[in-house]
């Protein structure tokens, strides 16, 4: 594992100004080393997704600096930024977000077509990724013919096909049953270990978080706590639960009952 930080966010503040002004992040620092698998946890509305959007350069912070793989996204034009995203990131979402009118294969190959890769190369890569994720037998199906796990694996294949440096996942197991969720997580871990791809995952689920190297907890847009993985996933999981019980405000809520 390389020690160079691939993501470096310093002093990030994000304020949404619409009808109601809303401060989503307050002076938050975040960094991830190359090859690291980081989970971001926190209650609803704590700013997890905002943070992920800022890392993925879809959103810009109100103040603070962002450096991704040595590049400051703020200095890029919109089009360059889009190309930067295209080359560096792979996305996995909760609402899977496969394009309904495309088949599994077409969904997977989509990022490559944007790059204008040669067809034979695209086909070779689809085959390879599909085999690795064991979805090579459903390549011609439509998204609405897939089970939740198959759909999420398709989404992961799409995120992997162009061999990105970073995979960003927003609740990747949110809509899955426990078996599929475990499959997906093990898959992500394998990719992380084998390919050395950096992963940042937002999750609610302590089991999902326990697969990671490190868990960052945020609350109301501010840093709350950080945990590193130890030898046993079981104890790591227990420690995550402990932080969550402090974090969730559940104790406070219970008092009113």
């Amino acid at each position, binding site marked *: 594992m390389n020690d160079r930080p691939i993501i470096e966010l310093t002093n990030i503040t994000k304020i949404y100004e619409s009808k109601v002004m809303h401060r989503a992040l307050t002076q938050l620092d975040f960094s991830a080393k190359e090859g690291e698998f980081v989970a971001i946890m926190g209650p609803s509305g704590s700013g997890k997704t905002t943070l992920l959007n800022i890392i*993925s350069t*879809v959103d810009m912070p109100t103040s603070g600096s962002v450096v991704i793989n040595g590049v400051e996204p703020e200095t890029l034009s*919109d*089009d360059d930024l*889009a*190309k*930067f*995203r*295209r*080359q560096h*990131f792979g*996305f996995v979402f909760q609402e899977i*977000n496969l*394009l*309904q*009118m*495309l088949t599994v294969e*077409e969904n997977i*190959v*989509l*990022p*490559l*077509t*944007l790059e*204008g890769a040669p*067809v034979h190369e*695209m*086909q070779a890569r689809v085959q390879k990724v599909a085999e690795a994720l064991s979805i090579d037998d459903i390549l011609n199906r*439509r998204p*609405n013919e897939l089970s939740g796990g198959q759909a999420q694996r398709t989404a992961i294949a799409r995120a992997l096909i162009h061999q990105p440096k970073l995979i960003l996942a927003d609740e990747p197991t949110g809509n899955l049953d426990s078996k599929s969720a475990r499959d997906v997580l093990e898959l992500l871990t394998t990719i992380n270990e084998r390919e050395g791809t950096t992963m940042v995952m937002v999750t609610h689920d302590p089991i999902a978080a326990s697969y990671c190297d490190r868990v960052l907890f945020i609350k109301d847009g501010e840093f709350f706590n950080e945990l590193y993985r130890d030898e046993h996933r079981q104890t790591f999981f227990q420690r995550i639960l402990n932080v969550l019980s402090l974090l969730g405000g559940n104790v406070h809520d219970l008092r009113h009952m």
Partner: protein
Amino acid sequence: MTFRQFAYNNVVRNRRVYAAFFMASVFSVAVFFLYSMLLFHPSIEDRFLQEIAFVGMGFAEVTLYVFTLFFLFYSMRAFLQARSKEFGILIHLGMAKRQLQRLIFLETMLIGAAAIGVGTFFGFLFSKFFFMIVREIVRLPALPLYIAWEPFALTVGAFLSLFIIIALIAPIFIRTDEVNTLIHEDADSEHTDDFSPVRGYLGLFLLIGSYVFAATTKDSAVIGLIIVLPPIALLATYLFFTDTLPLALQWIRKHKWIYWRRLNLLSVTEGIVRLKENARMFFLVTIVSTVAFMSVGVLASLTSFASQYREVNPLGMTYKSAPGNPDEARHINGLIAELGKEEIDYDLVRFTVMEQQSSTTAHRVTILKASDMNELAMSFNASEVALSEGEAVFLPASQAAARKLKNTVVQTVLEPSDVPVIIRGAYMENLFPAGAHGTNAIILNDIDFEKIVQRPNAKEAFAYTYYAFYVSEWQATKEVGRSIERDLMPLSVSSSFRYDNPGASYSILRMTFSLLLFIGLLLAGVLFLAAGSFIYFRLYTSLDRGRAEYDVLRRLGVTNKEFKKIVNRQLMPQFFFPWGVALLHSAFAFMSLQVIWGALAEISIRKEMLLVLGGFTLLQLVYFYLIRWRYLAHVRAPLS
């Protein structure tokens, strides 16, 4: 909240979705009302023009009615499908099927009533303006604004019935049997592969076939083709959109080297989905556009026919007096006086025209005197005839006849005067209206002409007197000689004189054609707006999907430019494919029309055709950019 309030709130809160629907309805009500205002206008006195206005407007109104019916029918169905989730929830909450039907009926009638009210209001507001345009184009005398109950009654009655039909039919579109599927229905999840390759090829074959026939048609076959081709083309167009195009897209899908190239992947699949949704609408738009192109093209060419009227009628007024016409002197003096009063410059040449029989053919020959002819030629600045004794030239009835007679030489004797004459060639200047002196006329030298006149029985040889008024500002004479026309009216069959005033005839022709053209243009405008609104409406109902897609694509790193390209490729075919096919259709239809038309009036309609098609394409382009702008703005709005 009462049931009616609920319906009202539904409409008001869904107003953005209803907007396109509402606008198109309002526009079509307004135009319908304007037509009705003209239809019932009390001061269009000219009976002929009134008839034209009546027939033209009537036809336009029926077309408008039928099209609006189709348009509302389609939009209503698409709209109700888009709301199926909402209906699912209502049924879940225990709404009876009959209540749901009543809800939809109330909503539709609410929109309908509002559209009728607003449309009639705007129609009335703009009717003065409309009359002014009509007056300008048609050169009618002033059309005052008037208030009568008929236009209101017709418009309200027509559209009320229309909306009631729609409101009664619409609820059938909702499948109320499976509540669960209603709630979870994903409008776009339908399969896109159900088309028949056989029908696809058949469509292509029929389309190409009808084009080939239309393009290669000859005079004799054209009448048959006019009956046979339109239904074939209609069927071909339908198959083209429902089967041929999906077949073509499927072909692309199978060929990854095209399909997987850059944005093609997204564009082609999007195309398939849209085509699937809208094939019938595209068909309808294509047919309606073709009809609009055709009618406007034909009407425009009629206007150009009128503008070439002068060539067919080079003289101003003409007066042809048979022997024994008691009114001759009175009429001519009257015309001269009127021309003087209106201060119109003219040259008057009086022809004494004789008639003889040709010894060689036994046909009657109409004979004009060379010096009379030369006097007229001088007014025209045309070449004169120089004939010595025993010589004559043909006076051709038309330019086609002139070409035929140009090199003809005939030697004959004019009977019964017994005057030998050589008729050599034709007088090539075009000074008379076509066929003014029949098909067998000659110009005879003065000496021989006098021989015929001086004969004892000259009275029998005398055919008629022809007064040719050469007027350079010929259109100015349209009011001259009205009293003569009145004399002519009651005994038109065996009249002893004939009066022609091309200035007046032209103004009637022009008015008629302009009026028809104007009606056609307005109608085409309505259809065009409605078709565009429908596309917008479809886009709007699938906006959520569009936004979700935009979000995914943005994260995948699609640049703004690329996204615009994707939207372009998504919208362009929807706007321009039906129009392109319609252009092609009408181009080929014009080609076969040119055969009849060319034979009819010896004019080419190519210029008018280009003008009309170009104009429509430009309009379509403007509309396309307008809608793309709105769509992009909506899609890029942050996800709520």
